[in-house]
């Protein structure tokens, strides 16, 4: 009954992540690459993403503080990298915020950039928290539980 319970807990978390539009197809692709040889593959990729992306967030934060005037090119470049990293784990909502931010950059809209970035950080933190809980569940359940067996 425990195994069954774990499966349902994981399914509940996953359902929430997709249902809330936080993750997209890319995350499923990652799970399909996970197997017995690489049982923690997805968690490893996600951990790497959060390491990279937190550095980018700091850089963007810093660049937004240098307001005389804002260097929109630099911001756009940083956000381009951040978006790429987010895409790699299927972070759907975060990615959407990245796109919005870049539009504001191209329009030279400083206020828009600031607002959008605040929202982005919120989405980023929310997803991170959920994914941490998800991987905690997965680790508890054992390697079989999150591997996608759609084949």
């Amino acid at each position, binding site marked *: 009954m425990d195994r069954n319970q774990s499966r349902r*807990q994981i399914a509940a978390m996953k359902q929430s992540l997709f249902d809330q539009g936080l993750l997209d197809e890319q995350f499923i692709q990652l799970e399909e690459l996970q197997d017995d040889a690489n049982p923690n593959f997805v968690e490893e990729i996600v951990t790497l993403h959060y390491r990279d992306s937190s550095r980018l967030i700091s850089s963007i934060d810093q660049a937004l503080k240098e307001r005389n005037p804002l260097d929109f090119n630099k911001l756009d470049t940083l956000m381009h990298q951040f978006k790429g990293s987010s895409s790699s784990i299927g972070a759907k909502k975060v990615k959407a915020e990245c796109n919005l931010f870049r539009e504001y950059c191209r329009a030279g809209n400083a206020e828009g950039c600031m607002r959008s970035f605040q929202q982005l950080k919120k989405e980023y933190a929310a997803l991170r928290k959920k994914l941490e809980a998800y991987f905690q569940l997965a680790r*508890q359940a054992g390697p079989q539980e999150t591997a996608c067996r*759609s084949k």
Partner: protein
Amino acid sequence: MAGTSSSEIDIPEFPSSLNVLVIDTDSGVLEYMEKSCKEKSHKAVICFESSMAVEVLRKEEIEIHMIVMELNMPMMNGFEFLQFLDEEGFDIAFVMMSDDFTLSTMTKAFQLGAIFYFIKPFGDRLLDLWPPFLKHYYDRRHLEDDETGDGEAKADEDDETGDGEAKADDTLHKKDDTFHKKD
């Protein structure tokens, strides 16, 4: 019956139109559930207090097929309600809902008998998930009934075909696949 050895266990279909008892203090959630149920041809019986839900169950005027309940209800919370169901012998599919997705909370809900857990806030496709895990719930329930000898004829069929257990397991896998395919 001898001679009617089909390869499938004769599991009664769970009702496609469900009576769902929804318990939450949040009128937004109650409205959403009511609307969603209607779209899927289910009937929602809404309660904004746990005591109302207890009444509905005890009165037995309407057969409840599923309960969806917010964990943090004031007088009787989700955990206590599950215990109440157990004590009074109500064997009804129960889904917990909450914005609390901590491991300990979710584990406790499942341990006390919840079959699923909806994490708030909801997206649009919440109710798409109902059929697969509900079917699984009903399949397992009938399998357990067979094992305890409630369905003797069915038990014989199990022996003949030998794949009763496998069927239940396939249901589990199918549930996962359905979930993945949707996304």
